[in-house]
């Protein structure tokens, strides 16, 4: 349908959404997101909030791993820093929740910078091991420190705004969804400036990045800081969402979950982080539904299919790696390209 796009200014050509079809779809999506809480059940709202939190964290990891090429298995640990900071501030000081979220994210960013320091010397798997080490240290710290409630963890009061308590999925949705949207928009903006380009340059060829005047260490640490800021913010939202933070809330397997999410979604694309996180969050739930539908035919379906569900989930991920290594975002790109010329040529 779209044969070509005519632009008359550089600004129009540099826009994030450069065609009217795209902008139309975006408006529809926004309207859908606004209408969603009024029609969805609390269960689906719960899932929507969880998806949004995971999108925020996966987008952060995508900046670090997908764009800067630094493999990290510490995303869940950075989330735990944000979550604990928010819980402690809410319990001890009762400061406004937006401030708590920002402090938690900033603290996670500082920890991220510290963890990122070895990245100038080590790369790939070696860096991943270094980030695992950091996760283990943080886990140990949180499960032994009295401030963070040791092994019992912390349970915290809900967020409140001028006496209005935000504790139901419906109200939490209005906190989590806008914050996530802003974070994703921020990441997309970042990538069309010199900072985003520097990240990609470091990923693709760090020697020639240096010749272009990009100081490697500074940019690698910037990437770590932004990525763990995102994780910290997502962790803070997670804390307000569940209101119980324990050392087991953010296990290492969650870090792998985020890494899998950006691989399935498409590394190095903003859309990939979104699609991957939603896919990874929703598919296990959808498989549970599938098992439910089978119950009338086969009464033991739920019990019998529980392990099968995990296998199907794993199979889907492996399938993606083999058949669509560039992820869900690539499928979306192909669909778009098809419709650019449709119906004149397919």
């Amino acid at each position, binding site marked *: 349908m779209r044969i070509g796009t005519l632009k008359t200014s*550089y*600004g129009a*050509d*540099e826009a994030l959404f450069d065609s009217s079809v795209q902008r139309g779809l975006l408006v529809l999506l926004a309207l859908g997101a606004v209408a969603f809480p009024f029609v969805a059940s609390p269960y689906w709202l719960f899932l929507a909030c969880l998806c949004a939190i995971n999108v925020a964290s996966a987008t952060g990891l995508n900046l670090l791993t997908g764009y800067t090429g630094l493999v990290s298995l510490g995303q869940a640990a950075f989330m735990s820093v944000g979550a604990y900071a928010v819980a402690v501030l809410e319990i001890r000081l009762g400061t406004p929740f937006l401030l708590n979220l920002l402090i938690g994210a900033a603290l996670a960013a500082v920890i991220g910078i510290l963890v990122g320091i070895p990245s100038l010397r080590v790369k790939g798997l070696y860096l991943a091991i270094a980030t695992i080490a950091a996760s283990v240290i943080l886990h140990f710290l949180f499960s032994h420190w009295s401030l963070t409630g040791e092994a019992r963890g912390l349970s915290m009061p809900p967020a409140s705004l001028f006496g209005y308590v935000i504790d139901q999925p419906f109200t939490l949705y209005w906190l989590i969804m806008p914050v996530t949207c802003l974070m994703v928009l*921020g*990441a997309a*903006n*970042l990538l*069309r*400036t*010199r*900072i*985003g*380009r*520097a990240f*990609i*340059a470091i990923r*693709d*060829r760090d*020697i*020639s*990045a*240096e*010749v*272009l*005047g*990009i*100081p*490697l260490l500074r940019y690698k640490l*910037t990437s770590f800081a*932004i990525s763990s800021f995102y994780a910290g913010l997502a962790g803070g939202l997670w804390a307000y969402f569940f209101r119980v933070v324990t050392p087991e809330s953010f296990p290492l397997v969650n870090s792998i979950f985020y890494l899998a999410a950006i691989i399935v979604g498409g590394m*190095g694309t903003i859309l990939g982080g979104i699609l991957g996180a939603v896919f990874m969050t929703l598919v296990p739930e959808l498989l549970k539904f599938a098992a439910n539908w089978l119950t009338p035919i086969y009464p033991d379906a739920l019990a019998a299919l529980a392990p099968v569900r995990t296998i199907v989930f794993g199979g889907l991920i492996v399938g993606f790696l083999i058949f669509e290594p560039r992820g869900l975002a690539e499928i979306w790109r192909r669909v778009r390209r098809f419709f650019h010329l449709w119906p004149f040529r397919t």
Partner: protein
Amino acid sequence: MSLARADMAARPILEVSGLSLAFGGLRALSDVSFTVPEEAITAVIGPNGAGKTSLFNTISGFYRPQAGSIIFAGENLQGVRAPQRAARGLARTFQNIALFRGMTVLDNIKLGRHAHMRTGVLDALLYWGRAQKEELELRAEIEERIIDFLEIQHIRDAAVGTLSYGLQKRVELARALAMRPRILMLDEPVAGMNREETEDMARFILDVKEEWGVTILMVEHDMGMVMDISDHVVVLNFGQVIASGTPREVQGNEAVIAAYLGSGDVGEIARRIKAEAA
């Protein structure tokens, strides 16, 4: 001849003196001295393994020389790291193209301006005010000055990995020009090109010198091109400068002929082996 003299007297923008570089026992450069006059084309030639690329890597700041100094626009570059050298106007291209293959041509060129931009993380996240203004100014300048000049409008949105070798070399030149270079170091700009592409590139290099007033220092094996467009030629062999001067002077130099064609002189070969062993 008198013209050449006048050129030689021009103020040098880059002065390399007594540069020595060794990797363990291998001496890549020994006591290399030469000057690069401003707004002229200086070519470094020499047989394979003569140390030309090592010389370039030392000037860009990848290798730390054991002895000698590099003075760029009156400033000693000792202790200045590669990214800062780039910010001071020392731009270069690589022998085997060092573009970012996954990015578009436009993004590759934009990367060249990195060191001259001011956008910080917060500006970038918001893409408001300074970040937006800076990006759009850069885009306009790249389109109107660089893309137009190098005739690559048709590929600006193509991924670099899909382009032909000759075009990639041209994009790399475009990226170096976006760095606001004071001196442009080209490592084999026409290697592997056919005659037509070579002539195009030679024309671009001459135009860069004439229109942009940029000094050019290049390593090249294509003697036809070197002799046609260079103002000065420096000849390296076994890490030493064996001759320098105008193309005509160098062409007639006996040491140069011996370096390229070999000599029947047994003593010469012995001296060479000795130099290599040292």
